[in-house]
């Protein structure tokens, strides 16, 4: 669990070993083969006894061997790869995932808990045995006894440092072991650390199966919460900086939102917006004073309000074809349309056309009839006169 640790490998060693500096005696000096010093096996037993006496969560030699087996690399090989003691310390600070160690969420939670005092108490309390063990590691890895690989882990304090990691490797520590462990270091950590951070870390680890991303997000959240109010205000309302596949969560959920936010059109539109809203005082002057509407009765206005929704349509089509309404307007007003002949009605009586000079058949027939009528009437008048004169001559006789 190197995610929560921002310190280097040396600090990691310090974190694990500083928990009970006064209760755990320093391991014996490991100089196998030298006169006056214990052999490798004795040193290993002494270190194991010191660990067990100091914390109650010590690891036996068998556990140490299990850890070495879990790492999958013997100490001799590790020593060969590491050119110096610093490098070996960095390697010990690697996460379990990098060493292909199976993930155990509960143990990781315990590891977080144990790493907390290092963050809260600070490295100043780490003086003592852990610091003293570091040069011994370097001394041993320098190859004072390169041939002896059996007890090389005794002086390497990462047996204690990644206690959670070693538990992960061994698999001996299950979920039920955490509350049952009467570890004073854990208890002291619980008292000294922030309850919110611990519980949040446990929740993150327990609820997520991803051993890589979940602790990262958790760390980011803690960092954000630890910011000052000004920093949080500058950071914006988002509490977490979440991302999915290197895409911010907001853009991942709404792809168009990110494109729109980055678009130049949006920035240009924002620049064009006025600083203030429309001047409603001037807009009000455009509205009628109410004199026209005040004269209307309520029934008329109610009818108008009823009509307003359905009878109010956009007149863009009329404006597009405004010329077509000119002739229709002429017709509606009773005026001649443009381009047509002027037709003027006269108020006086109408006269018929003058008679044609040439005679027609009708005229001839009419003349014949009139002439016949006149001749008939004339003949009858003449006949009557002759009859009357004849009667007069006969009477005188």
């Amino acid at each position, binding site marked *: 669990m190197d995610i929560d640790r921002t310190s280097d490998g040396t600090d990691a060693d310090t974190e694990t070993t500083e928990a009970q500096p006064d209760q755990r005696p320093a391991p014996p000096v490991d100089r196998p083969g030298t006169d006056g010093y214990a052999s490798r096996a004795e040193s290993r037993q002494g270190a194991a006894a010191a660990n067990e006496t100091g914390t109650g969560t010590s690891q036996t030699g068998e556990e140490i061997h299990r850890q070495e087996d879990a790492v999958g690399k013997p100490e001799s090989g590790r020593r060969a790869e590491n050119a110096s003691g610093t490098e070996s310390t960095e390697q010990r600070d690697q996460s379990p995932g990098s060493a292909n160690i199976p993930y155990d969420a509960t143990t990781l939670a315990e590891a977080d808990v144990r790493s907390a005092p290092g963050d809260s108490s600070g490295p100043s309390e780490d003086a003592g045995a852990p610091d003293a063990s570091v040069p011994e590691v370097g001394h041993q890895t320098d190859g004072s006894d390169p041939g002896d690989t059996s007890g090389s882990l005794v002086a390497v304090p990462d047996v204690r440092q990644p206690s959670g990691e070693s538990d992960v490797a061994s698999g001996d520590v299950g979920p039920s072991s955490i509350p049952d462990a009467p570890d004073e270091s854990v208890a002291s950590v619980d008292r000294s650390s922030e309850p919110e951070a611990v519980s949040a870390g446990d929740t993150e680890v327990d609820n997520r199966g991803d051993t890589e991303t979940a602790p990262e997000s958790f760390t980011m959240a803690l960092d954000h919460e630890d910011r000052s109010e000004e920093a949080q205000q500058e950071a914006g309302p988002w509490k977490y900086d979440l991302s999915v596949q290197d895409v911010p969560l907001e853009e991942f959920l709404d792809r168009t939102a990110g494109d729109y936010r980055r678009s130049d059109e949006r920035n240009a539109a924002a620049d064009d917006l006025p600083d203030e809203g429309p001047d409603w005082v001037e*807009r009000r002057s*455009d*509205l*009628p004073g*109410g004199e*026209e*509407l005040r004269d209307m009765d309520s029934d*008329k206005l*109610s*009818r*108008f309000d*009823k*009509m*307003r929704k*359905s*009878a*109010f*349509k*956009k*007149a*863009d*089509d*009329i*404006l*597009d074809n*405004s*010329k077509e*309404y*000119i*002739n*229709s*307007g*002429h*017709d*509606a*007003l*009773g*005026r001649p*349309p*443009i381009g047509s002949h002027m037709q003027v009605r006269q108020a006086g009586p109408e006269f018929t056309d003058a008679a044609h000079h040439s005679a027609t058949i009708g005229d001839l027939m009419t003349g014949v009839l009139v002439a016949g009528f006149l001749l008939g009437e004339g003949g009858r008048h003449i006949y009557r006169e002759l009859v009357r004169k004849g009667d007069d001559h006969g009477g005188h006789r």
Partner: protein
Amino acid sequence: MAVTDEQVATLRAYLAGEFDEYERLSERLDPDVDGLGYGALIAGGFFEAVDRRFAGGGTRADVTEYIGDVRSRSERLSEQIDPVVAERLIMHSLGKNSIDDVDDKMVVHTQLLLLIALIGDEQLDDAGLDKFIATTRALGNRLLS
């Protein structure tokens, strides 16, 4: 949004029969921008003109007869004015019927033709036309509010 002076001047020129002025002013209007205000102005004027002619006791028969009279003024008007739509529009302005199923373009088209016929029949002088336009503008702004 409110009815603009340009929209009012355009409709006044049309109702006054000043078609050259109407053509000039209408070309200055943007259909996309002024379409809404001009439509509100036409709707307000149509409501006011119908109210003046038929609200004082006009019957449906009077409405039908008037529509026939307007359509008989020219063959073009007879083709452009749907008698059913025109009657429904007038009755709707009088508070009756519904025109929800009538096409939007048909509504504003018939309103404009009936409006100019109604105003032409009133034989308004300039003062009367100005007063009518003022009321029309007030109603149009009420529609837009």
